[in-house]
């Protein structure tokens, strides 16, 4: 039964990768990579149960955190630029 879960997750990952490659706008690509990240978290959790090594769950937790930070970073730098919102005086 966990095999069924792993199979479904792999199929969703394939669909997300296709969207990441096709993606008409950059936002589509960011969305697809975010979905891929969440699916990887699920894949690692399912693999932890499948292989009988539950301590791998820490990797899934860590990756869930990193995925969120990654999306925020992409949006911060891509959409709002590198400048810190400073206003330039006297130029």
């Amino acid at each position, binding site marked *: 039964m966990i095999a069924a879960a792993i199979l479904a997750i792999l199929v969703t990952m394939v669909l997300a990768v296709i969207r990441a490659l096709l993606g008409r706008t950059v936002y589509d690509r960011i969305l697809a990579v975010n979905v891929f990240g969440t699916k990887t978290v699920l894949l690692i959790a399912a693999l932890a149960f499948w292989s009988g*090594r539950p301590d791998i769950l*820490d990797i899934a937790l*860590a990756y869930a955190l990193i995925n969120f930070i*990654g999306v925020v970073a992409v949006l911060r730098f891509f959409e709002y630029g*590198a400048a*810190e919102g400073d206003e330039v005086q006297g130029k």
Partner: protein
Amino acid sequence: MDTLVDIVLLAFLAVSAIAILRLRDLFAMAMMFGLFSLISAGLFTTMDAPDVAFTEAAVGAGISTILILATLAQTARREQSPARRRVLVPLAVVWITGAVLIYGTADLPGVGDPAAPAHNHVAPHYLQESSREIGIPNVVASVLASYRGFDTLGEVVVVFAAVVGVVALIGLRRRPPGVVEGPAALSEHDVLKVIAKLVVPTILLFALYVQFHGEYSPGGGFQAGVIFAAAIILYALVFGLDAARGVIPPKLLNVMPATGALIYGGVGLVTMLLGGNYLEYDRLAADPQAGQHLGILLVEIGVGVTVSSVMLLIYFSFAERGRGKLRDDGEAGP
């Protein structure tokens, strides 16, 4: 089923590598880089190497992607098309080199072959004696911090040297003169600000968990340091660099990399003063196993302190470069 997962992940790896080469939009390429690291982490997990997978996920998909994005935000948005050149000679060189390398791998032992030299000299000793001599369940941590402690000291010093190099090249300047601080870039995102305030302490707590639980489950100083830095970077992304500098004052942050390396080296000196060799943790307590535990704990704390402060310093150096520039109008938009 394992084979199927391996095949699918390797196919993803190849596809994302080709995509990285062919994409001209650099931000999309940075996202695909993150994807590549993530797939590698998945592959390491199926190969039963959770510590490596942990580090790859945290460093490759997290910090590396953030640093690449911070750099790209200050340079162009699209890659210039390469000039048309004759490709036959370079292509032939690459193919011949590849063929020779593949021919060379025919002599290597197979994956997991028990007769391979790598599995036959010290590795069985570590695996068999670790529970008796050191007594912590995670053999990777015992090899990293105790049996090969000197190598890990070298790694910590290399990380320290990296931050020295970055700071020497780029510098850690404060806000340039004539620039007044405005609102942080993500200041209108109220939902994000609330969630970030909830999430950052959780991530810090998880980093501490990974640091101290590294002896029992995959984890340890490197991964914990990276996750700690990622939490502070999230705070800096949402609330601005100046707020993040309020969390960790620059005076403290500038001495932390050296402090971590000193803690590590200092443990070695203490064991020498107690009559043993350098980094012989047995001397640190009356019972050798307790001494090993104490030594590994202190050494991992040193590693965690250095790695977290180095990642933060590098991020702050990169992000400060964007200050004071007017918003660059390289082709924005999709």
